[in-house]
């Protein structure tokens, strides 16, 4: 039983970690909390499900196109919502964050309703990539789930490598620390934002496909995914990628434990309550900076 919780917890946590790094990266660099995050995940998952099932595409191609859907939605979010909000309305800093939340929330509804119009508001799941089952410490686990968890950690490692070891990644880091200074160094901040949103979209897209494979997604379930991502990111400390990874595991294990020990229907409840307690005791999150 305990081993079962640990194995499933590890698998789910890996996906959570991947699904939230994009969210936290975006906040770290642009200071934007994208409430449409969960719906972006759902859209990519649903696109892959459609391409694989109805359009009968090669699974790998479908996954790649699903990830590209995420990139497209990420860029659309930036071009249609974020940039107009910043350029059209001369908002004060305090106003900007509430308007940003409201605008991305409206964008969520638009995406969600478009999805349910096109594909119907039903939960869908992407079929497993590889059939078969493997025993880990006596726990029967689909090979596909193990692959998904491995892939998640690989992508996170690649992201870490990109941000800390490449020049383009360092530019993004610089933009998160001091955007004005970066502009003075002759870097086009707008181009940096586009790159960040594209990376964000790619991460969210792939994560969406994997979430659809393990948990299933639905258009109206997007907001709940956002809430989970939000909880993880806040628990770990906004903008702290390391904190996010730890929090993803924490939430993943708590949810899995709850599902096994109490009931799957209240899976998300303890994590939400813990989140509120943490916020009251330590508002900057477990690993956040003030």
């Amino acid at each position, binding site marked *: 039983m305990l081993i079962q919780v640990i194995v499933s917890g590890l698998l789910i946590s890996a996906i959570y970690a991947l699904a939230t790094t994009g969210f936290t990266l975006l906040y770290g660099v642009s200071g934007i909390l994208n409430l449409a995050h969960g719906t972006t995940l759902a859209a990519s998952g649903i696109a892959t499900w459609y391409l694989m099932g109805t359009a009968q595409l090669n699974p790998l191609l479908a996954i790649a196109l699903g990830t590209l859907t995420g990139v497209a939605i990420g860029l659309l979010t930036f071009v249609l919502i974020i940039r107009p909000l910043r350029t059209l309305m001369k908002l004060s800093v305090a106003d900007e964050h509430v308007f940003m939340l409201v605008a991305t929330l409206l964008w969520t509804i638009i995406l969600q309703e478009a999805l349910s119009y096109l594909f119907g508001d039903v939960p869908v799941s992407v079929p497993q990539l590889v059939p078969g089952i493997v025993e880990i410490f006596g726990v029967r686990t689909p090979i596909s789930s193990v692959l998904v968890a491995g892939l998640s950690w690989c992508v996170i490692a690649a992201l870490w490598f990109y941000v800390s070891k490449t020049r383009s990644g360092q530019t993004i880091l610089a933009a998160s620390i001091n955007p004005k200074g970066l502009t003075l160094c002759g870097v086009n901040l707008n181009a940096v934002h586009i790159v960040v949103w594209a990376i964000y979209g790619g991460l969210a897209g792939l994560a969406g496909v994997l979430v659809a494979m393990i948990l299933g997604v639905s258009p109206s379930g997007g907001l709940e995914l956002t809430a989970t991502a939000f909880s993880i990111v806040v628990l770990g400390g906004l903008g702290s990628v390391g904190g996010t990874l730890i929090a993803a595991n924490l939430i993943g294990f708590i949810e899995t434990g709850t599902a096994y020990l109490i009931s799957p229907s209240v899976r998300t*409840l303890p994590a939400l309550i813990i989140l509120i307690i943490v916020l009251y005791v330590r508002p900057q999150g477990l690993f956040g900076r003030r």
Partner: protein
Amino acid sequence: MAGNTFSIRRPLIGLAIVSLATAVLPYVGLQEYSLSILTLGLFFAVYAMSWDLLFGYAGEANFGATFLIGTGAYTAALMSSNGVATPLICVAAGAAGAVVAGAVLAFPALRLRGPYFGLVTLVAVLIMRQLIILFSDKTGGEIGVAVPDVIAIEAATNFHIALGLAAVTALVLYLLVKSPFGLILEAIGQDSVNAQVLGFNIVKYKLTAFCISAFFSGLAGGLMTFYLGTASTNVFVDASVGVQIIIAAIVGGRRTVFGPILGALFMAIASEYLRPLGSLSELAVALIALIVLFFLPGGLLGLVRLARRPS
């Protein structure tokens, strides 16, 4: 401008005239069905006005409007279905319950800065929803609690109850935001650091605003429960209902008190006309709200003002 009695009195006279003119609608041949749409729209208007007190004046995005409304609705419904009290006492208890729940939620949450407040309020709705489903033997789960009593059966009476509530809410909130309290609240919302430097206790003001918002939300929630005859999660405790309230307030006009009434009625009527579009109707409404947010930050009411006073 706020100290000028004229500028305070004129909108109030306008409110009285419009309310009285609206009150005769049932007697000039408006059908019961249309009346029921307007009744729901007016309840919605109360939610939107209460929400805008926090968003427009206190500068906080409360994503947990339905936490407050739901507390009012469920308190009233559970008391009534267990035969504890008469409907009006149930509604009063609902409003009181919402204030208590709001204070419990907001007192710690308001110490949080930036997006954290919004997050906590959003999470509060999700927790409440899960708890209702978890204790479904008492709360009826997703189906909801049916209330055995009614306050009024006639469509016209119900319409007048909703209208009266909306008018009283608008009156109280308008006087409030034009009072010294309201001006300080607005100052806090626009520049909390400077307000703090001037010596105002930010948490105290925001908490009071939150409780007032909770009171009207809970009151309307309780009354609407008796109007609908049931309290269910999809109507009262739902993040997407919260989104509708936000849309209504923004479309109507942020920081205007009366604007959200227009917004809520617009939403009620628009969703009726857009019904043939199916799920696209919500998309259309969200799109309209987004366009209004970008190009008309003052909302519909802002448009009226713009037309009246070209600058």
